């Protein structure tokens, strides 16, 4: 498996955000932590498992939490950002508020 570099993951995140018209967390340190987390998960599991959830390590079992996860849009609708505080709605981004932990929508 070819590993991903930090820059590869940054590009991936930017492309996902751009394609969906989402904003990225403006806190560069937070963004860096998540980028590093995604990189670690990709390089050990082979897919971009959400860095804020513990992965099973089997793609089929983790398919709902592969970034951007299945819960991203519902969480954005309710809280303005995804579970990790990575992808923000434009409204939340412009509010100047800082993303915090939100309740886990995933069951099990």
């Amino acid at each position, binding site marked *: 498996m070819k590993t991903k570099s930090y820059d590869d993951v940054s590009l991936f995140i930017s492309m996902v955000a751009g394609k969906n018209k989402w904003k990225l967390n403006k806190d560069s340190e*937070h963004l860096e*932590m*998540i980028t*590093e*987390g*995604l990189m*670690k*998960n990709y390089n050990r599991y082979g897919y971009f498992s959400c*860095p*804020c*959830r*513990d*992965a*099973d*390590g089997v793609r089929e079992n983790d398919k709902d939490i592969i970034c951007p996860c299945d819960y991203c849009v519902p969480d954005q609708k309710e809280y303005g950002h995804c579970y*990790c*505080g990575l992808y923000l709605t434009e409204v939340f981004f412009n509010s100047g508020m800082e993303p*915090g*932990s*939100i*309740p*886990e929508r995933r069951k099990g």
Partner: protein
Amino acid sequence: MDDIVFIKEEGIKKKGEIIVYALSTCAFCKKALRFLRENSISFSYVYVDEFDHDKKNQIKHELKEKYKKDIGFPFLILDDTTVIIGFTEDEYKKKFIDG
């Protein structure tokens, strides 16, 4: 979970026994640990994701059964009674600084 080796960080302030189950990849976990560190609060932590598959599932199962909470990270346990899941600075301030 008696066989888990926690990393202990000694601070000046003792706010009770604080144990944090965290993920090495999680930004909110890192922020929670940093909050405790920067406020010189003693705590112990472990990165759950760095255990093998069976062990980490055992840890999550036991936490869920013992504390009757769905698992999220960081999973902080204070004095074996109070559980704080996730990190928001306001909540940690209320619990460990103002409280």
